[in-house]
């Protein structure tokens, strides 16, 4: 019953969601036209509303998307103020040219329509990426993700997961503190000095929680015994592999393709070796790790169809995928890319069953059993 309930509440494996998020992000990069980005954001929002259940991460979703929009708007303003030269001047502001040691560019001056449009377009893609990331966080079990890591990275992954978990609790704390601040003055809002009044309790509460959690982990033997030489060997090997891959990227940018090729090969080999050593050599066992089911694999394949189909369309020369700000015109919407992006809705074939009401019923029945006993 437990297994069934488990998969009923979270129908998809964390790795499946990871693949979904990667596929969605890749689709955004291949088809950055605003209408397609809007479609991906809509899909991400739908996914959160269906799978986010009542998790604090799901409540953080609108906040993160809003934050991304603020940053996008800021970026538009900065770009419009500092980038010049082009047709369609909307209006002209008083200008100021910075000295050379500050970059030497002109702030203000003429503000052009296409430059604003281009910056907004690029900003919107970033909003899309953040929406996908926030949706991924809202639906995924972070611990499940940590469990899927090779053993050698388990402790590190857990620390990261615990760190991520502080985001929603901090949001809750901010809400509580704001309310307490209003309650203190009988509902009257006093703006002066409000930031300090609100930030100090949030930080201190967060710190206290962090200490409690650290002590709880310590008391339960976290990182006891350290890692075996084999595990740490694997970890170092993996780190070296990643470093090699990063080096390959740098070499590629510098135009050293032979060096890049060598680095890619050795880096990739090192990562694979690390994975193999870490997963076979570990004597320690994880408690009931969730395994990928056939449905998970099928879904991974389905969502991967989206970026693959978009790539094919892009090679075939579909002009609607990318939008150009100049000359300014309404972005086009074609049927095929929409169908391709539709693959990202595939997770919805299985819906979670809310366990909320079930929980209260079982807890009362358990009480009755206790009383009877």
């Amino acid at each position, binding site marked *: 019953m*437990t297994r069934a*309930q*488990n998969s009923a509440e979270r129908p998809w494996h964390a790795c499946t969601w990871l693949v979904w998020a990667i596929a969605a992000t890749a689709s955004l990069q291949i088809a950055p036209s605003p209408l397609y980005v809007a479609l991906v954001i809509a899909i991400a929002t739908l996914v959160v509303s269906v799978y986010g259940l*009542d*998790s*604090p991460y799901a409540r953080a979703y609108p906040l993160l998307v809003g934050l991304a929009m603020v940053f996008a708007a800021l970026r538009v303003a900065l770009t419009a103020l500092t980038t010049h030269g082009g047709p369609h001047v909307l209006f002209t502001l008083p200008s100021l040219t910075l000295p050379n040691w500050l970059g030497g560019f002109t702030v203000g001056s003429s503000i052009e329509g296409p430059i604003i449009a281009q910056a907004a377009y690029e900003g919107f893609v970033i909003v899309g990426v953040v929406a996908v990331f926030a949706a991924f966080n809202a639906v995924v*079990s*972070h*611990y499940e993700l940590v469990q899927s890591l090779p053993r050698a990275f388990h402790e590190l992954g*857990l620390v990261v997961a*615990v760190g991520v978990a502080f985001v929603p609790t901090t949001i809750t*704390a901010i809400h*509580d*503190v704001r*309310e*307490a*601040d*209003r*309650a*203190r*003055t*009988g*509902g*009257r809002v*006093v703006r002066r000095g409000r930031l*300090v*009044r609100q930030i*100090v*309790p949030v930080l*201190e*509460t967060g710190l*206290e*929680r962090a200490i*409690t*959690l*650290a*002590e*709880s*982990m*310590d*008391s*339960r*033997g*976290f*990182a*006891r015994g350290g890692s075996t030489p084999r595990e740490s060997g694997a970890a170092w090997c993996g780190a070296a592999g990643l470093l090699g891959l990063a080096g390959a990227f740098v070499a590629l940018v510098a135009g050293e393709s032979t060096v890049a090729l060598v680095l890619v090969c050795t880096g990739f080999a090192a990562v694979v070796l690390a994975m193999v050593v870490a997963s076979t050599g570990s*004597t*320690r*066992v*994880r*408690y*009931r790790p969730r395994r990928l089911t056939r449905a998970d694999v099928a879904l991974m394949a389905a969502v991967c169809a989206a970026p693959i189909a978009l790539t094919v369309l892009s090679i075939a020369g579909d002009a609607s995928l990318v939008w150009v700000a100049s000359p300014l015109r309404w972005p086009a919407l074609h049927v095929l890319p929409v169908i391709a992006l539709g693959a990202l809705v595939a997770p919805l074939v299985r819906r979670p069953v809310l*366990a*909320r009401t079930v*929980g209260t019923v*079982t*807890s009362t029945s*358990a*009480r009755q059993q*206790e009383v009877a006993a």
Partner: protein
Amino acid sequence: MSALEYRDVRFGYPDGPDALTGVTLDVPAGDVVLVVGDSGSGKSTLLRAANGLVPHSSGGRFAGTVVTFGRDTRTHTPRELADVVGFVAQDPEAQFVVDRVEHDVAFALENLGLPELVMRRRVEEALDAMGIAHLRDRSPSSLSGGERQRAAIAGALAAAPQALVLDEPTSQLDPQGADDVLAALGRLNADLGTTVLIAEHRLERAAPLAHHVVVLEAGAVHAVGLPGPVLADFPGAPSVTALGRLLGWDPPPLTVRDARARALSGGREALHGAVAPASGSSPATVTDLPAPGPALVSARGLGVDLGGRSVLHDVSFDVHAGDVVALLGRNGAGKTTLLRALGELLRPTRGRVDATVAVGCVPQNPSSVLFAPTVRAELRETIRLLGRDDDAAIDHWLDALGLTHHAARHPRSLSGGERQRVAIAAVAVGGAPVLLLDEPTRGMDAASRRALHDAVVQHARGGGAVVLATHDVELAAECATTAVVLGDGDVVAAGDARDVLAGSLFAPQVLRVLPPFLTVAEVATALAREDRP
């Protein structure tokens, strides 16, 4: 054999005064040992020394030895003691590592590197021992307080430790949740022989469970012994114990059952004379109820929806000048929501709240209010925010809540109960005639409760009103004039505090032993009347 041996343990936190000043104590294996004492008497420090969190995690000055099942904590870190001592901190919410109960319970086992089959068995056993097998797939944040605390204990228990150390495990819980947790601990001790070291303020439920009680005072052991004799002289003793002390019952009872047996076998005689004259009239003659003043806040047809769920429906009641309203009901019944609506922190979905005067609201978690460097500055801040300058009010509230000697301290360095009082003072100093207090006695020791009780009564007598959302029935019996019981968002009982409390499961202990008396103070008054014919 001793499970834990403390030998002349002295400890001071970094930059702080000494928390322990020479504790020598043996905790016998297989016993339940209850540690009591005022806030700041060193209970938490004593407990945290059991598995080496003091001094390994806390830092500070440590002297003496603590030997836990033959391992010296100076040479063994908490993680090396994880297989013999399980530790559960006060705040259950902050100690979950994994967002699923079952996996959180398995966390210690994974760290100990046990084989898979052993882990499976241990997790099942721990879930069963705490009666939470049906919650295994839930996220800890979705559980009720009692369930969450039991899940935290299961997490400590899975490693099959020989001793469990719990710091005020029931302080955040409603009576139901507290019962569940303590019953589970009792079962654990009886069935598995696990040594339990537990610190508590509210002793009504914990005292009957204990084999030994340790009273701490200013970082030293004041008394150790059997619960009855030791608690007889302790100010925070359960009401029945205080009653037994008043009536000269020896040994003083610890449970309602003991006390009732005692009352039936002659203990009541002492009171016959006192009860008889009052029995014809209303019991309210025992305390003098002032006539209700004008309505200060009135709610009409109040309904609140949160997250698409109706949390309150059609609640109507008035708060009059001079009222102390006790808002009772289990966790999740809508008490906090009602307070927030009355305090206009929340816009009601239906109905309305009319307040003729200012309303101040103190949230459940005092930490969300406190930010100033000293207690006095914390109070001054409220006055300043209201655009006034009134040192007399600051002194008045510091004095009323017994905080005068803490005025120069940092609010966060105080204990839970003291912080709660600072938060109340910081709101009350604004001069709002109506005060809404959400669970004000959480984690409070006897002295803090006394101070709070006096301040509440004084505020109401002065023409104000106080609404207390509380699980503390004894507090409600001692100071409430009106009681409102909420059940699933509805008012299920409302009216004179005495009538409501007398007719419900929420009856205070004294009422269950010597009706119609509600509190020890009432019995004392009646006895005094009898002596003065």
